[in-house]
């Protein structure tokens, strides 16, 4: 897979006639050794902290305490603790799925970033479906999002993606030993490795060392909540459906 995009221009989706099969083969097609060599040669142009800091001014406050949803009562064998953690994860997956979905639909980022968004968006939507289906009636509904132009700005988008993917991998590491159910730990681990691949992939795209440390550290939920809040991506306060208001249309 070619990795040189020095002269890439923003592309519309129609410009990239890639079949779904080809898209799904993109991850497998990455030449890991070549990627590492290229990244090493480029050196580390930004630390993870710098990338994260650059994403923070994207602004805002979380809506209605969504990501800090308290422990729900246990249902279907789920403990309140596990329910609360999974609800947090579902909200985060909604946000990430929405981010990549919008980037793919707008098609305004560079082709290599767009390819990343298509594959990762497909993964995040599958995560949403799985966690939502597992939680059933305990699932939180998706909030509304305003990505504030990030999905149409390649530089802002990749920095945001690095921040979210890095922190998601660290978050799942923090959550795993806190689940009561080993079955849920087993399920979360299947997501965790995928999130780390996402993190390495987007770090390579942005020119940051994909695997920067020998041991990754966990990051607590409040750190992720702070990141989400800082972006102002979660919005509320608008309604296009109204009850009890008599129409004033011409009839």
């Amino acid at each position, binding site marked *: 897979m070619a990795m040189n995009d020095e002269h890439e221009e923003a592309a519309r989706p129609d410009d990239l006639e890639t079949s779904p099969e080809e898209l799904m083969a993109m991850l497998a097609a990455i030449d890991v050794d070549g990627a590492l060599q290229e990244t090493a040669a480029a050196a580390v142009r930004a630390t993870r902290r710098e990338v994260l800091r650059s994403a923070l001014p994207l602004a805002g406050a979380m809506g209605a305490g969504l990501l800090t949803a308290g422990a729900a009562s246990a249902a279907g064998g789920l403990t309140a603790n596990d329910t609360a953690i999974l609800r947090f994860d579902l909200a985060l997956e909604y946000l990430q799925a929405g981010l990549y979905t919008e980037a793919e639909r707008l098609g305004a980022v560079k082709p290599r970033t767009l390819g990343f968004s298509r594959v990762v968006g497909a993964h995040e939507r599958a995560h949403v479906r799985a966690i939502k289906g597992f939680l059933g009636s305990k699932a939180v509904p998706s909030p509304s999002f305003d990505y504030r132009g990030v999905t149409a700005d390649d530089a802002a988008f990749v920095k945001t993606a690095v921040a979210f993917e890095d922190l998601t991998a660290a978050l799942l590491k923090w959550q795993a030993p806190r689940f009561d159910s080993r079955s849920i730990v087993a399920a979360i681990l299947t997501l965790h490795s995928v999130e780390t691949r996402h993190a390495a992939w987007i770090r390579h795209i942005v020119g940051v060392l994909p695997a920067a440390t020998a041991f990754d550290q966990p990051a607590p939920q409040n750190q992720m909540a702070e990141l989400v809040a800082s972006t102002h991506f979660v919005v509320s306060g608008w309604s296009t459906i109204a009850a009890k208001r*008599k129409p004033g249309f011409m009839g």
Partner: protein
Amino acid sequence: MTRARLPRVAPVIAVVAAAVAVPLLSGPAHGVEPHAADVHTNAASLFASLGASPRPAFAPGRPQLLSRNTPEYRWATVTRPVTARGAPGGGSAVAALSTRTPEGTTNLVLVLGSAWRHGVEWVHVRLPVLPNNSTGWVPRSALGGYQFVTTHLVIDLHRLRATLMKDGRPIFTAPVGVGEPQWPTPRGEFYVRDELTDYASPFYGPIAFGTSARSSVLTEWPDGGFVGIHGTDEPQLVPGNVSHGCIRMRNSDILRLAKLMPVGTPLTIE
């Protein structure tokens, strides 16, 4: 490693694993060579004692790819009062956009495209103003997050039928009542911008959708003379040219449509 080679190497792997696992798990042998049969037996019992791995509580399954062959439309709320311009980056004023509709709901616009001028993103939007079919440009910062729909409502004024398309296919059709000749329902490209429910007015039926279309004749109508899509207390008049310009449906049809058509759906009246 190919699947075909696996059976031949599997016994080797098992023996190696057992040879490694037994000393590790049972401690040093202190010069006592374990018998081969004991190695197999001890390894098997040790591995069995580990128990089965817990089955994952859920599995993400296949990646959910977006469809690339169906039409998509996007809309956005108006988050601050703004003047729509005739061109990206400026141009003459086309219309003033407020954050609320006459019905009190959040105002929204259908997005047609975007362009960057001097580092600022401008969005080309369809406007709910006269003359009908007007469009203009507003700064991206004046709009909220993008919402996407794959539905499209088409009103055929000649055949007096409404057809809702989803993913490019018709999923709903029903007869409609439209404007009388002196108050014609306007033709053109519009969008659905709100939905009203639970009001006490049999005239409008159980549900009414507001649209961006406006009467070009009844310009003095209160609340701007917007074209609604709603039910009726006179179903016997549908289909027909019976209204002041609104699109009427039988109540059973408008209830069915409400389950299928989200706000923001583009509307073509032809």
